[in-house]
């Protein structure tokens, strides 16, 4: 399941969906807004997506992860718009029969999402400036 949303991410609902009798392990990853980056203080982040392509790439990621690992459930949710400090901008939940696969799939999914899904973050700094983040 993949989703782009402007609402806070409801982790309980995602975990309930992933906790199935045929799974023995659930791994959830949350990317949260960190207050300090290289010593600068952030007030909030703002996320923008190329919606149609981001949804397609997320669906591709789910499909590829399901080929690589025996996933019972695979959930990718990215929040868009303003995300306050300490709230989650992204949630990845995978459940598998055995735990090593859940850790491997979860880490591969977030690494690949960060490389290939057209979503951008804008830092709103405490000094009143803001900046799109385009890592090179």
């Amino acid at each position, binding site marked *: 399941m993949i989703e782009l949303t402007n609402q806070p991410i409801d982790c309980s609902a995602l975990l309930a969906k992933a906790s199935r009798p045929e799974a023995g392990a659930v791994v959830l990853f949350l990317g949260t807004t960190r207050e300090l980056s290289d010593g600068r203080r952030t007030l909030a982040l703002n996320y923008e997506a190329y919606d149609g392509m*981001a949804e397609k790439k997320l669906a591709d990621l789910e499909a590829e992860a399901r080929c690589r690992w025996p996933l019972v459930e695979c959930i990718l949710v990215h929040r868009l718009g303003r995300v306050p400090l300490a709230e989650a901008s992204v949630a990845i939940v995978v459940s598998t029969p055995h735990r090593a696969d859940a850790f491997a799939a979860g880490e591969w999914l977030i690494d690949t999402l960060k490389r290939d899904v057209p979503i951008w973050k804008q830092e709103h700094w405490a000094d009143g400036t803001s900046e799109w983040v385009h890592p*090179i």
Partner: protein
Amino acid sequence: MTVRVKLFAAARELAGASEVAVEVCDGATLVDIERALLAAIPAVERILPHARWAVNAEFATSDAAVNEQSEIALIPPVSGG
């Protein structure tokens, strides 16, 4: 022909628009689109060296041909997650 290029994040802000139309010859590739975009909006120059292109919601290489129906997007380095 006229093609539309979607712009995002810093590229969108530099251009002051989320989509721009550029004129290119029939049979143009992304190389031609990039040249036309740069001529129309010189400020995107600082984004281009590290950006990727997408055609119809898939990453595409610079030799990819496009037509008037293509959905073309400039993809600056992504920072989701």
